[in-house]
């Protein structure tokens, strides 16, 4: 499977890169012959003797090596800076979009409420004074039901926008991740009963508990499961996996055998309002909210997808985040 837009991978890679001092310290052994050669050459120069050829060669090799280490460090620092700048820009973008979204949602809610009330009032009048013509009565009733349903749909969008813009502090506690996921899987199984869809569990036994916020994590898992269900057109399977590693990370992976994601869509997956689903099925806020939550919980989301074959979303959480006690905004 091909890796695509994976903000998490960049984060991981940046974490692996140390500072330039660390880089030099890693190659301290290379400086021992360099210092030796320098000393030998300096002694020869002071004694007015010609500097031996092997010392000159050693100087050359050491010079090239030091140059290599310096260039490598500069490139790594630059890549780290680029990553930080990208993260900062993304955070600023999300904050601006969040503010705009909440402003729009507030302003739209009031006229929506008026439309909703008027519809309910007309429905009320029609109950008492129905049009005499049967066909007209049926059509008016149907039209009003459509208006009410569309008001409900708009309300769902504005309420989601407000959710997206909402600030809330994660409330952390030790959580049994397998149990939390199983709750959500059962919920999805109930909803998808009767479809040609199977959900396979591959939970790691004795998985380490995670210090996290259960309602926020439930929201993420449910969202990813719903996306997996929607990605499967006719029949297929979803595999839910959990595992932990010695480095203190716990992975929750949700893989589907659905339609997969086109490579050109991958860089935009976590952008608010980006959706590959039709307007009937998505607002384009689900993954943006997931990423916001997972980031606030100190983790990251990895994506692995191949068009036509399926996708895998992996939520990687630290068992105990150090700096995650920040506002989810």
């Amino acid at each position, binding site marked *: 499977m091909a890796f695509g837009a994976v903000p998490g991978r960049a984060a991981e890679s940046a974490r692996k890169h140390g500072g330039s001092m660390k880089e030099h310290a890693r190659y301290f052994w290379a400086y021992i012959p360099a210092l030796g050669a320098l000393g030998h050459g300096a002694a020869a120069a002071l004694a007015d003797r010609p500097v031996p050829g092997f010392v000159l060669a050693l100087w050359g090799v050491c010079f090239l090596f030091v140059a290599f280490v310096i260039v490598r460090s500069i490139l790594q620092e630059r890549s780290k800076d680029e990553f930080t700048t990208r993260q900062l820009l993304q955070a600023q973008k999300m904050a601006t979009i969040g503010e705009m979204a909440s402003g729009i949602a507030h302003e739209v*809610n*009031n006229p929506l409420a008026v439309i909703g009330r008027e519809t309910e009032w007309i429905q009320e009048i029609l109950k008492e004074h129905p049009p005499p013509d049967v066909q007209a009565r049926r059509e008016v009733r149907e039209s009003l039901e459509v208006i009410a349903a569309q008001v409900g749909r708009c309300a769902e969008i504005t309420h989601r926008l407000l959710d997206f813009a909402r600030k809330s502090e994660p409330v952390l506690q030790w959580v049994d991740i397998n149990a939390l996921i199983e709750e959500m899987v059962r919920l999805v199984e109930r909803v998808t009963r009767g479809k040609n869809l199977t959900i396979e569990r591959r939970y790691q036994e004795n998985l380490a508990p995670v210090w996290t916020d259960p309602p926020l994590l439930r929201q993420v898992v449910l969202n990813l499961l719903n996306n997996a269900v929607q990605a499967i057109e006719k029949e297929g399977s979803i595999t839910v996996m959990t595992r932990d590693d010695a480095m203190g990370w716990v992975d929750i992976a949700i893989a589907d055998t659905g339609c997969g994601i086109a490579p050109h869509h991958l860089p935009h997956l976590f952008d608010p309002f980006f959706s590959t689903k039709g307007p009937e099925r998505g607002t384009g806020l689900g993954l943006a909210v997931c990423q916001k939550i997972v980031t606030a919980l100190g983790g990251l989301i990895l994506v692995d997808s191949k068009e036509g074959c399926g996708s895998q979303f992996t939520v990687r959480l630290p068992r105990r985040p150090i700096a995650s006690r920040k506002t989810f905004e």
Partner: protein
Amino acid sequence: MASSTARILLVDDEDRFRTTMGKLLRKRGFEVEEAGSAHEALVRVQQGDVDVIVLDVKMPGMDGIQALAKIKALDPLPEVIILTGHANVDAAVEIMRLGGYEYLLKPCPIDDLVVKIDGALEKKRAREKILRG
């Protein structure tokens, strides 16, 4: 369905929304009065005999949160349901702290509002019973 004696005060500066909501609630057996601003609502609360107040937040002059504090100072008995298009966690916390009964986000179906009004009425009557001993 609420008892016919339940008196509801609707406070919203959006005239059409308020009047239509009033008509719908009257159809469901409530006695409904309307106020187009927080000031009007305070005058009405001072006169007494209001069971439940449905209060908007964003209104010119005085907002719903300020109005809630003043209503509770004038008469702590009526239950207040906030019905607003402006959701905000801080405001919701403040509303609950000031003694608001419920916080609803517009648009919400009239039946959902009626369920909350019934709950508020029940709470108000239980409190009255306790106060009377």
